[in-house]
């Protein structure tokens, strides 16, 4: 080794989500990163721990009528209505590009019925590019499916069961925060075989256009995301990490390495960057840089030392 020009220290940022090994704990949250290609000229996609794509359903969905988004204090509401190209076109048009990135690709799926979840999982099982499936049981935007699966432990377990049965890869279940006790749902899906849980999805909210005396969103309700929800997300991640044995992935208002590290202290093994991608398209890479620098500055042997390292007096 050249002592005058030592190679820069390589922080050990590796984490495991069940059987899935990641180079670092930073993922992009579903629905906030398109199909990744949108960001290719703005950041280095290969630096990511994993990429989670926009939620995919069995059939294409047109989504909700506009307006679909509105800003709120330190946050935004969205009612995209799960617009997506459907699993078939996703596999044909999007997966080949994603497969070439050399980064684990996690496919977020949603369905209106248990059968749909099963069928979409079967279709994805044929692809070798998919590293894991994230099951959205929590999206508040469509009337059928979403809300019901995510707020009832039995239904949540049922969905988990069928996806797990058909999936060739690890299954992450994404939890809704719009429940009285999120640990009940987390325990139910863990018992049903989930390899990990991710949380939180958006809080159900609403905005009003005073001038027009109408809801600001055509859908009336929308999902609240961004820094505004971070305290709720952090609380739920902490509660769930204490209640289940499987890895927890923290989501909600994460903008910086500091935010990400707080979620890891609370018990998250990995994190997802959502709304921050809109504000700073390089946000996820910045978080990777930041936690690497932290590991070096603090002299940690690995980022894994941070997971659940919160001290309670």
């Amino acid at each position, binding site marked *: 080794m050249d002592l005058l020009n030592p190679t820069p220290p390589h922080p050990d940022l590796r984490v495991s989500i069940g059987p899935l090994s990641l180079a670092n704990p930073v993922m992009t949250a579903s629905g*906030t990163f*398109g199909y990744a290609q949108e960001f290719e000229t703005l950041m280095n996609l290969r630096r990511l721990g994993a990429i989670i794509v926009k939620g995919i359903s069995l059939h294409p969905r047109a989504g909700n009528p*506009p307006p679909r988004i509105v*800003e709120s204090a330190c946050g*935004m509401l969205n009612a*995209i209505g799960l617009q997506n190209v459907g699993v078939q076109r996703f596999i044909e048009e999007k997966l080949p590009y994603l497969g070439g990135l050399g980064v684990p690709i996690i496919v977020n799926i949603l369905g209106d019925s248990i059968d749909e979840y099963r069928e979409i999982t079967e279709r994805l099982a044929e692809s070798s590019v998919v590293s894991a499936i994230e099951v959205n049981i929590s999206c508040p935007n469509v009337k059928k499916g979403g809300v019901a699966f995510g707020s009832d432990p039995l239904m949540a377990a049922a969905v988990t069961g069928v996806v797990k049965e058909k999936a060739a890869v690890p299954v992450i279940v994404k939890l809704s925060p719009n429940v009285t006790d999120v640990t009940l749902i987390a325990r139910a899906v863990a018992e049903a075989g989930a390899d990990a849980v991710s949380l939180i999805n958006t809080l159900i909210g609403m905005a009003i256009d005073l001038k027009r005396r109408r809801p600001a969103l055509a859908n009336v309700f929308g999902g609240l995301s961004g820094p505004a929800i971070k305290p709720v997300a952090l609380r739920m991640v902490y509660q769930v990490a204490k209640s289940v044995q499987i890895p927890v992935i923290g989501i909600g208002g994460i903008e910086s390495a500091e935010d990400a590290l707080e979620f890891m202290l609370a018990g998250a093994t990995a994190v997802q960057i959502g709304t921050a991608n*809109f*504000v700073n398209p390089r946000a996820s890479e910045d978080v990777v840089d930041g936690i690497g620098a932290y590991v070096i500055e603090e002299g940690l042997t690995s980022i894994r030392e941070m997971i659940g390292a919160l001290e309670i007096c």
Partner: protein
Amino acid sequence: MTQFQEKATVTRRELLSSDNVRLTFQSAKIASAAEPGQFVMIRVGAGKDPLLRRPFSIHQATAEGTLQIYFKVVGRGTAMLAGIREGDEVSILGPLGRGFQLTDSPVCLVGGGLGIAPMLFLATRLGERRSGQIHGRVLLGGRTRMEVEPLLGDFEQTGFPVLVATDDGSFGQRGFVTAIFSTLDLPPDCTVYCCGPEPMMASMAVLSRERHLHCQVSVESAMACGMGACLGCSRTARNGEYVHVCLDGPVFDAEDMAWTF
């Protein structure tokens, strides 16, 4: 299509009227990649509130890296941006979206209110293609003199004759710019470019169709990302499907859009 997130320095701040501001940035990468009709997303503050970037049409851009936006103060974000000082830095994302399709045939550019913003860059580029041989006109409309006059000189420099209408008659013809358009004698291969308030663009779509003229409009919608990632900026197309303003637009064929009157 390459996009950049650039820290750009404000080199000039012009208060063109009590509400309307023009900012000039040094933004080498974005300015030199920009095409007329494209837009940028700008962070208006350093904090978490307002959270999202604000979209602005590219008002002017040069290969040397000068980028301009021209905007009206309508809310918190634009107020913060208006308060910026020369020498300050802002984060700009761009160039974004699909701009105008340029043509060598005759043209008619119609800008109303803040819809004037993208027309200057467009007129400049169209003027350059035509050097000397100008087949076209620029129509500018505003509520009042101060919404149009400060920009007149810049438009005249593009070489196109400029016609003006104001709602209150304080400058140019009294009334809507669409009225001027209706009286104009335009060749059948004339392309119409339009940006302005919704009702104006809806009228221009109808007027152009009646005259069998191809009309391109630059439309708006609420936006979060500006780059196709959120799917938030949808608008209803004529066929009932949703298009996304940041990706499929902001420029569309007027024929392809659904208009409400």
